[in-house]
């Protein structure tokens, strides 16, 4: 296509956009709402991820060691645990640290502290706190510990006193299920909302172009070929998308600023304003490309309807 053609099509599209003021305004408004929904879904997903992440981090497994367990063996177990792909972090609490923590926790409880002082030896064993990548992986970690425990039993005395996974198994399993269904539900909601938004946009643009059908007929009679008729409408759709996405990106600033503190307090500590600023590049690309694609693709298909038949009336 010659450069002049492209220039004429773009100019014609821009002029039509400006002169069809009301239709352009309506289309921009609908795409703006659509993009606002899409953008909100990004924040919804972020909040959901953060909240679920926090819940996941609350689930952990503690391994309590026997009083006689040598520190070197505990630390070697820690290293082998850290080597497992399922394990995110392992925190070691020595016997002394456990005692200090106990004292701190019961600082106001004079009776308990006195009872502790009566004992000659530190009654608390060392422990490891294990955080898995996924809540569903605790079972295999627990099995691994069980194996280790059995192995060491053969050599001398047993070093692992207790693994609290078995006490919390029911709760962990249920939580794992809830998290999985929450993730699926979130994904479905995002998908359905985005689909509804796209359909509404398409219908609006189809209506907007429907008002121009007689004009399209005249263009065809004057001898304009497809690209000359379709081109300006696609340029118009592109402009709808571009302007709408700019509006949405600007609107999100005060909206996220206003909601930021509330989301920080309510949902797992994520401030959506900070999130918006930090991920601006990504959100910019998603919103602008959604807008432009929605606008141009809708226009493309809406005009095509009036161009495909050879005869204007059949």
């Amino acid at each position, binding site marked *: 296509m*010659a450069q*002049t*053609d492209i220039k*004429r099509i773009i100019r014609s599209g821009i*002029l*039509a956009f400006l*002169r*069809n003021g009301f239709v352009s305004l309506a289309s921009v408004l609908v795409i703006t709402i659509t993009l606002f929904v899409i953008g909100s879904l990004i924040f919804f997903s972020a909040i959901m991820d953060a909240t679920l992440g926090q819940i996941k981090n609350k689930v952990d497994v503690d391994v309590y060691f026997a009083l006689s367990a040598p520190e070197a063996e505990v630390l070697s177990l820690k290293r082998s645990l850290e080597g497992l792909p399922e394990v995110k972090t392992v925190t070691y609490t020595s016997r002394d640290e456990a005692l200090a923590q106990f004292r701190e926790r019961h600082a106001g409880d004079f009776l308990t502290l006195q009872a502790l002082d009566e004992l000659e030896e530190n009654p608390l064993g060392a422990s490891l706190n294990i955080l898995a990548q996924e809540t569903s992986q605790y079972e295999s970690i627990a099995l691994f510990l069980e194996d280790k425990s059995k192995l060491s039993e053969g050599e001398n005395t047993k070093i692992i006193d207790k693994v609290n996974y078995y006490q919390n198994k029911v709760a962990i399993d249920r939580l794992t299920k809830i998290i999985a269904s929450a993730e699926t539900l979130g994904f479905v909601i995002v998908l359905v909302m985005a689909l509804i938004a796209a359909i509404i946009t398409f219908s609006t643009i189809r209506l907007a172009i429907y008002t121009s059908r*007689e*004009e399209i*007929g*005249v*263009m*065809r*009679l*004057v*001898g*304009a*070929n*497809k690209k*000359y008729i379709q081109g300006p409408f696609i340029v118009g759709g592109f402009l709808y998308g571009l302007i709408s996405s700019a509006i949405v990106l600007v609107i999100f600033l005060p909206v996220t600023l206003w909601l930021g503190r509330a989301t920080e307090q309510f949902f797992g500590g994520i401030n959506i304003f900070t999130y918006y600023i930090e991920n601006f590049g990504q959100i910019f690309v998603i919103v602008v490309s959604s807008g432009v694609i929605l606008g141009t693709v809708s226009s493309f298909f809406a005009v095509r309807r009036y161009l495909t038949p*050879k*005869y*204007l*009336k*059949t």
Partner: protein
Amino acid sequence: MIYFDKVSKIYSGDIIALDDINFSVTPGEFVSIVGQSGAGKTTLLKMLLIEESPSSGSVFFESTDIHALHSNDVSEFRRRIGIIFQDFRLLPHKTAYENVAFAMEVSGKSDEEIESDVPQVLELVDLGDKMWNFPHELSGGEKQRVAIARAIINQPDIIIADEPTGNLDPLNTHEIIEILKKINDMGTTVLLTTHNKGVIDSLMRRVITLDRGRIIRDDKQGRYVL
């Protein structure tokens, strides 16, 4: 130049719009097609514009059966025809200048040609001072003159005017017919449909009379007889 070969058009419900139409038009002719409403005048022109397809028969332009053209070639064919309608059919969001320029743009004329030809043609139809007005700012006669300017800008082989004076007062009617005559004098074939007896009688050119889809008269220097 134009040859209708046994063309019939039957709409659903057995409504016969055209019934076995045969006639030919030679280059440079000024042919008026008359008939009562529903006689088939507009349908006949629509066949020539590939707006509608014939139920049987063929329409030839030079030696091409135009209804056998591929849809990609239809727009190129239409550029060889200038069209004027009763309801003007201007593009409402384009100025008079842009409406005329559009016809040149689609046929691939350069910007320089457009900038020199469009004002000239608009001067010719006496609209030099209304070039930048939108259709809704123009009177009926002025709109029709823009439509004529658009029709002749690409120097088409043929001008088709479908009741171009139907919405105009006698003075504007006279002006439009004079312009059409002038275009014909310069060598362009003109095909005109009209209800206006005065117009036909003053033209003294060939008249084809249609009645219920059939040609009932074809006179070299005809009058409006119905």
